[in-house]
């Protein structure tokens, strides 16, 4: 537990997400990441009813060169607080955590978090000779062995899981298959063609043992969230979605290598923190969002957060349990594997929309509490409630 847990618990339900927005998602060779981010911001402002001049905190992120200063210049916005966190998708929950702390401190009133990504149009491969950022040293320290890409790091973990527990690629296929079914119910989703376990098994390897369908999409798009205090949230357009708990635990040990402990050293600590702060347990979670750059993340997250025991995720994810209508629906929007690769930002949006009961045919019935989990050197998690 962190140093002053009593103080941390003061944050519980004190900050809310009041606006969510998304731009078009897909391939837009005529656009750029700033334009898509601003498109999402306009959507989010309209969603909550705030005006741009109400925003006094600006958090900006994306996989390309994207600057909060430049974006502020474009918008004509001069906030009190501006920030970025160049750790790719690992930053999506930590940035919400930071924004919550900044709002709680009283420094700002309304923070906009804006994400812009033009990876498809820019031809980004997430492997090979690309720039290195903190938390992704494993992808760049061993080029001379041909080792690169976050996908390879996840392939090492999939292999470890298969070898240690006797799980199989065919069992893992259920993750992308279920998420595709969810995407088929989501108007924003890019991939809506039916996907079967057989198609997964016949698809080509990218880095073995991971197949094509174990990998996230690479596409263009933008996302925005507007956060404010619970007090101010009550005066806005939509029912607020509160941050009940946030957990984070980093590990920097051996971070130049792909992780060979299946993140067992950090994720359980983030779990203890988040459930302790929110005052709920795994049984209270109505749906899970899991950062799914690769299918194996789902298994690792379920095991390390105590939804099942280590080694059991292969069985746990069969038989409809993680599908809409099942006991624990996961990534009800389709996730990175089928909806869109917005590095976790659309997972927040889906959690908020589910809790507002805005999801139509993919609505989780009576959703009250939804958790989002991201694995990695920076293990992080947030619990939202309506």
């Amino acid at each position: 537990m962190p140093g002053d847990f009593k103080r941390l618990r003061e944050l519980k339900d004190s900050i809310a997400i009041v606006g969510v927005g998304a731009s078009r998602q897909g391939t837009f060779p005529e656009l750029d990441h700033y334009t898509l981010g601003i498109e999402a911001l306009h959507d989010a402002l309209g969603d909550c009813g705030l005006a741009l001049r109400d925003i006094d905190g600006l958090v900006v992120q994306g996989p390309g060169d994207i600057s909060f200063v430049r974006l502020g210049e474009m918008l004509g916005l001069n906030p009190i607080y501006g920030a970025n966190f160049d750790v790719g998708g690992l930053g999506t929950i930590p940035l919400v955590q930071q924004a919550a702390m900044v709002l709680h401190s009283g420094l700002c009133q309304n923070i906009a978090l804006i994400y812009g990504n033009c990876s498809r149009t820019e031809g980004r491969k997430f492997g090979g000779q690309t720039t290195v950022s903190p938390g992704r040293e494993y992808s760049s320290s061993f080029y001379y062995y041909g080792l690169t890409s976050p996908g390879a790091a996840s392939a090492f973990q999939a292999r470890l899981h298969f070898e240690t527990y006797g799980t199989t690629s065919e069992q893992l296929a259920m993750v992308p298959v279920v998420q595709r079914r969810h995407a088929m119910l989501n108007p924003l989703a890019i991939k809506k063609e039916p996907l079967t376990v057989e198609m997964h098994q016949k698809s080509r390897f990218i880095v073995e043992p991971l197949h094509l369908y174990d990998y996230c999409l690479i596409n263009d798009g933008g996302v925005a969230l507007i956060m404010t205090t619970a007090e101010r949230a009550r005066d806005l357009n939509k029912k607020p979605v509160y941050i009940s708990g946030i957990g984070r635990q980093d590990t920097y040990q051996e971070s130049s290598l792909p992780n060979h402990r299946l993140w067992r050293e950090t994720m359980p600590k983030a779990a203890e923190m988040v459930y302790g702060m929110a005052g709920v347990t795994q049984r209270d979670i109505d749906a899970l969002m899991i950062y799914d750059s690769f299918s194996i993340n789902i298994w690792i997250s379920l095991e390390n957060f105590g939804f099942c025991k280590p080694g059991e995720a292969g069985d746990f994810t069969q038989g409809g349990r993680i599908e809409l209508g099942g006991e624990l629906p996961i990534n009800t929007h389709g996730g990175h594997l089928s909806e869109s690769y917005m590095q976790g930002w659309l997972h927040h949006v889906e959690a908020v929309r589910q809790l507002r009961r805005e999801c139509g045919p993919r609505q989780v019935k009576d959703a009250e509490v939804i958790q989002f989990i991201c694995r990695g050197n920076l293990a992080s998690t947030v619990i939202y409630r309506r």
Partner: protein
Amino acid sequence: MPTPPKPLPNITNLDRSYWQAAKRHELHLQKCLDCSNVRYPASPVCGRCGSNRYEWSKMSGRGEIASWVVFHRCYFPSFAGDIPYNVAMIELEEGPMVISNIVGIDNRFLFRGMRVEVVFDDVTEEITIPRFCIAKEEPVHAL
């Protein structure tokens, strides 16, 4: 069309001794003089006890495969001719986990726990890259 050269290690003052030893066909890692912890990758201080006293110590070169992957996608044009190639995590007898390629074996025959030992690949006049092959004592079948 000529094949582009493969990426080479980016040698720094921190790990120069590692590469100088490799050139002599020896595997050296930093060993803490206070707590004897062997560490990798290179660091000016011991991540276990914090001491800045260390020596570059010769490793046995033996270890076991902890996990491995096989690249089917070509991320580096210079590796196009090697696809599908393996990259493995190897737990050395002395404790540290290292990354390398396993050479001289069909990827289908790799397994977790396979005993391997270091070999040295002089890729240029200046640079020698440590790789691993199946250890002599490992019973090899179906090769």
